[in-house]
């Protein structure tokens, strides 16, 4: 059974159900217990389980990560929430030097399955230090699972999988996805890490994406469908492990690929997707790989610069058209997925 939920509701529901099923799960983070409750995602859990299991923490990202690793080592399953992923740099030593290596370093006797959610800001002048997508940064390191769900169902399902995993997990959630609606199973059904999803079938060009960019890709696909260009959209869902097969199968079919992502191109998500293709099926490419990502600068605040900074459906559509060689067609300007939003965050 499934019904329509928003992305944030799906996370909130998944959290409550997972905590019901497993008394060792606790939520920790700054202000997770207030009336806003991490944009609604932790509030129902607080209402249901109270301050013992939904713990407001001091502003101490490094220690809180280490504390949750220690708690995971002693039988709890902490879910750490950061209202901006950018704060996770302060937790990075703990997550990389400890959590990701723990099981291996001590000879495979057990892991520290801490789960860390980071929300990626976008728009409304969030600016340079409140809108970074760190999925590729964390995805570089073995020993972690990293996912960036695009749909409400996957937001719930990957959270469920994370809270059952034996491996520490980083989940990146784009804030612009929070109001998006979708069908979500009522039950707590884990979505496995490392398994992507064909978001849309198409024949002319593949767009590989994760998180918010899946939606921008779908909007680009809608647009191009009207121009007679058929776009396939691959939602990788999981950043590590990465579903290489799904990517390669699609690109082998279409022969053309655009990678759309909110992390920068250099050493980012789009680099890895391109590399997988260059490694495995370079002969199938009928055109060069294209990357649609933010340009090489920090995120600006000013509205017109922000609009130009963020990768968008229009830019994806243009890149697809370039690849299929349809010069005559022009892409109408599209507003972003979160255009209805009236701020502030």
């Amino acid at each position, binding site marked *: 059974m499934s019904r329509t939920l928003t992305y944030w509701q799906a996370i909130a529901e998944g959290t409550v159900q997972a905590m019901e099923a497993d008394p060792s799960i606790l939520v920790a983070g*700054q*202000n997770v217990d*207030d*009336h*806003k409750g991490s944009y609604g995602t932790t509030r129902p859990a607080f209402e249901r389980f109270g301050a013992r299991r939904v713990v*407001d*923490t*001091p*502003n*101490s*990202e*490094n*220690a809180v990560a280490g504390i949750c690793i220690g708690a995971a080592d002693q039988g709890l399953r902490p879910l750490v929430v950061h209202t901006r992923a*950018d*704060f996770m740099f*302060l937790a990075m030593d703990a997550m990389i030097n400890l959590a990701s290596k723990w099981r291996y370093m001590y000879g495979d006797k057990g892991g520290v399955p801490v789960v860390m959610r980071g929300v990626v800001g976008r*728009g*409304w*002048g*969030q*600016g*340079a*230090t*409140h809108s970074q997508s760190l999925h590729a940064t964390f995805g570089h390191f073995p020993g972690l699972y990293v996912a960036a769900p695009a749909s409400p169902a996957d937001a719930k399902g990957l959270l469920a999988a994370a809270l059952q995993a034996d491996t520490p997990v980083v989940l990146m959630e784009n804030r612009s996805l929070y109001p998006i609606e979708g069908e979500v199973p009522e039950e707590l059904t884990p979505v496995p890490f490392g398994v992507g999803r064909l978001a849309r079938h198409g024949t002319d060009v593949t767009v590989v994406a994760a998180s918010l960019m899946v939606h921008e890709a779908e909007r680009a696909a809608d647009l191009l469908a009207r121009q007679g260009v058929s776009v396939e959209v691959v939602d990788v869902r999981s950043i590590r492990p990465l579903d290489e097969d799904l990517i390669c199968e699609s690109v082998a079919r279409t022969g053309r690929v655009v990678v759309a992502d909110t992390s920068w191109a250099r050493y980012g998500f789009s680099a890895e997707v391109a590399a997988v293709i260059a490694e495995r099926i370079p002969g199938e490419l009928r055109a060069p790989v294209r990357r649609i990502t933010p*340009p*090489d*600068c*920090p995120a*600006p*605040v*000013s*509205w*017109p*610069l*922000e*609009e*130009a*900074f963020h990768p968008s459906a229009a830019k994806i559509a243009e890149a697809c058209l370039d690849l299929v060689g349809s010069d005559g067609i022009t892409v109408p300007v599209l507003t972003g997925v979160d255009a209805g939003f*009236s*701020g*502030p*965050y």
Partner: protein
Amino acid sequence: MPIPNTTEDPVAHPAALLREMVRIRCVEEELADFYRDEQEMRTPVHFSVGQEAAAVGVCAALRENDLVYTGHRSHAAYLAKGGDLTGMVAELYGKETGCSNGRGGSVHLTDRSVGFAGSAAILGEMISVATGAAWALAQQGSSQVVVTFFGDGASEEGVFHESLNFAAVHRVPVIYVCENNAYSISSPLSARQPANSPGTGITERARAYGITAERLDGNDVALVHEATRRATAHCRAGLGPYVLELDTYRWREHVGPGFDTGIDRPEPEVEQWLERCPVRRGTAALQASAPDAQEPTAQEPTAEELVARWDAEFRDEARRAVAAAKAAPYPTADRLTDGAYGRPAVAN
């Protein structure tokens, strides 16, 4: 190398302190209204309404070439240090004429011409930056001091302690001003730090590094001012860092123009702090200090009259800044990546 400034630290007149508080209050209240009603300032804004005495009392004790670095709650210190109002408002509107050319927004203000070095959004960062700036200035023989403003919440970041330790070892001329408003967003101090018993608390943590530290009523602008004069004298005498913990309270919600009374914070608590309004107290103090406090004459306006006059003046100033910001151009998209890098390392 900056030229050492040898003039004495200023002692501000109560009227000057009050006037500056009124200015900041009026500007922020006006901005809050525009922010809420128009949704044109697209940048998360943390207002200091209710906390004006901290910025004003501290900055009035500084020389123009002393430096200030702050966290996210930056407007009051920016203005108190003499920062250009039109530049600030244009920044909130994301305009090219903004003090950070529209790239930084509310949490990344700067006006180097008056010693407002910068504000930053990640908790605790500027505590270390200010320490390093002061260290560098001292090494270059300057007598400038550096001040950093941050909240009770930021004091929970490890970098606060790392910075205190470094400053104590190297006797860095930096003044750490903790605006303790007892909240981090919605989280009360009691959820984040151990209950204050004698010998504990933020001030005591600083003392455990041998740092001179004072905790005081942060809504009494004269007290804050005097304490800062002690602090600057201490720093300029080469005696190392100084900590001021200022108890205060924010009136508005954490971010944005609204109020969180009865939601995140109990009404009686808010009420009690409204009573302790720094502007009203400054007004009363000014009135009390007047030579003819007991019998005001027709010639001399009362403190309240002064405040009312200033109020009108500054609201007008704020609205003019808003109008200027609206009229100013946005940065153009062709300059999107400009400024990410400095000049190339080597001409080649």
